[in-house]
């Protein structure tokens, strides 16, 4: 199906483990974003990418790594998961420059770190 998908939708992991959240979009949008959503904080930008092989930090990048070898994929890796990274993670994409064009959000991944 066309659109933006995330996997897995739910994940439980242990402290210290590496976890990778996947994001895939079929629109060939240039821009892709990773947000985390926590009660009281709204949506906070972790990393974003303007094109394949171009990434930049957002507001809360510590503890996360991203890559973008292909336009359609933008995986987010937690190198050593901590309990503070328990959150709902949303991936989003945008056709062009993020501030001028609407962002399309994926369904989210609920991550629990025990």
């Amino acid at each position, binding site marked *: 199906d066309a659109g933006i998908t995330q996997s897995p939708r739910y994940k439980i992991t242990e402290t210290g483990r590496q976890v990778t959240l996947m994001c895939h979009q079929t629109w060939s949008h240039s821009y892709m974003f990773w947000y985390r959503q926590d009660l009281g904080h*709204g*949506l906070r930008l972790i990393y974003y990418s*303007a094109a394949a092989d171009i990434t*930049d930090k957002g507001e809360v990048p510590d503890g996360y790594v991203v890559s973008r070898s292909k336009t359609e994929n933008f995986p987010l890796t937690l190198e050593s998961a901590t309990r503070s990274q328990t959150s709902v993670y*949303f991936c989003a994409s945008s056709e062009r420059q*993020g*501030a*001028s064009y609407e*962002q399309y*959000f994926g369904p989210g991944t609920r991550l629990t770190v025990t």
Partner: protein
Amino acid sequence: QQPVQSPQAVILREGEDAVINCSSSKALYSVHWYRQKHGEAPVFLMILLKGGEQKGHEKISASFNEKKQQSSLYLTASQLSYSGTYFCGTSPSPSLSYNTDKLIFGTGTRLQVFP
């Protein structure tokens, strides 16, 4: 800096109106508005770019006051389907930053509409 949204929560009866405000301490290039229903992803409502243009989307409209660095979302004759959390996202003026790609979201305003 995160934009500040007010109020934090609104409770309405069907048919009533509401205004949600979004204020920034920095000069803005654009303001986005999104609505998120419980357990779902945020969905785009509208973008307002520098220029003070007012936009509309069904019975939902918004304004952008550059001088005051704020935007307001107007919901008129609210419907049950309007329930959800509303987020504004702002990007800084190019005069402040070369990078207008990033959106900084507010903490949201929870709107509940009852019959």
